[in-house]
């Protein structure tokens, strides 16, 4: 596993972003679009565990940073889901991906042209509602009363901080309306057994779930 740089087109020009890559120039090449925002942390371990298993099964895989996240030098509050879609489409081209796996909210910004799997996809509105709810719970502990409607309004007019992520108003507006892209094969959590790791209060691993997800992908990709 090595870090790989790829040229990422953004409205202001092309910038360099990073990806984790298992690249042995093999026939089958899977682009993985990560879970979004707070869930990205809790799903990272499972995601990379799956990549290791795919490598052993003879499949290359690539996990690009979404601009504004992880190793990216770009400010998150200038990104939008639309710019993430364009970025992931270019990453797919750059790495010559043959297939796509999107994890959770990654299904909202995954390339639509390649054969794809969506693992436990989620709507943009649901991500937003839960992030705002977390902020309400946290504010209440501090004795500050915030409401779902009030924060949605604020988010749409001035942007919002949600669990350490500074999102611009345009990001929020687009996210609210986004649903998983069509044409993909859905992998519901039940097929992996156990509870989804994005639910965990703290990041965790689950080797059995990684085995199951990698097996589904390997069979599907090599079919």
């Amino acid at each position: 596993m090595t870090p790989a740089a790829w040229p990422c087109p953004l409205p202001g020009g092309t910038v360099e972003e990073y990806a984790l890559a298992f690249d042995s120039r093999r026939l089958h090449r899977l682009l993985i679009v990560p879970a979004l925002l707070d869930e990205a942390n809790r799903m990272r371990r499972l995601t990379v565990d799956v990549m290791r298993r795919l490598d052993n099964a003879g499949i290359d895989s690539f996990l690009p940073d979404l601009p504004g996240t992880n190793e990216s030098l770009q400010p998150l509050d200038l990104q939008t889901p639309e710019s993430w879609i364009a970025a992931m489409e270019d990453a797919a081209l750059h790495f010559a991906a043959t297939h796509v796996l999107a994890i959770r909210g990654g299904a909202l910004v995954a390339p639509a042209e390649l054969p794809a799997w969506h693992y436990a996809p989620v709507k943009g509105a649901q991500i937003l509602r839960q992030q705002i709810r977390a902020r309400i719970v946290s504010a209440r502990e501090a004795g500050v009363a915030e409401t779902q409607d009030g924060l949605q309004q604020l988010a749409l007019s001035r942007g919002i901080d949600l669990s350490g992520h500074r999102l611009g108003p345009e990001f929020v507006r687009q996210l609210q309306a986004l649903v998983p892209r069509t044409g993909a094969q859905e992998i519901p959590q039940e097929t992996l057994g156990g509870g989804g790791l994005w639910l965990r209060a703290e990041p965790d691993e689950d080797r059995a779930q990684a085995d199951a997800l990698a097996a589904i992908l390997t069979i599907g990709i090599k079919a």
Partner: protein
Amino acid sequence: MARARGTFNAVSHERHMHSDTDQLLRSILTDVLGLKSGQADAFAADTGLFGHLPELDSMAVAGLLTEMEDRLDIVIEDDEIDGELLESYGSLLAFAEAKRAES
């Protein structure tokens, strides 16, 4: 998990509904807290949750409530979320059962 079949015995059906909510809530907490299978069976009505379990931070609470909405088929308003609701397993279960009775 045993589910009530038929409605010929209203009392027994009611009891099963409740134990169903109890079971579902324990399985949600198992997922959120990353407990081993069976560990949540040890939760009693006075088992402390928010404020007692350091891993149950605001994000985890938000996830817990959203998952309760999904699996229990209820809607939780944000102004219903307070310290008391999440104080103990018993208070959370009572809330969930009341919500399911409403819907």
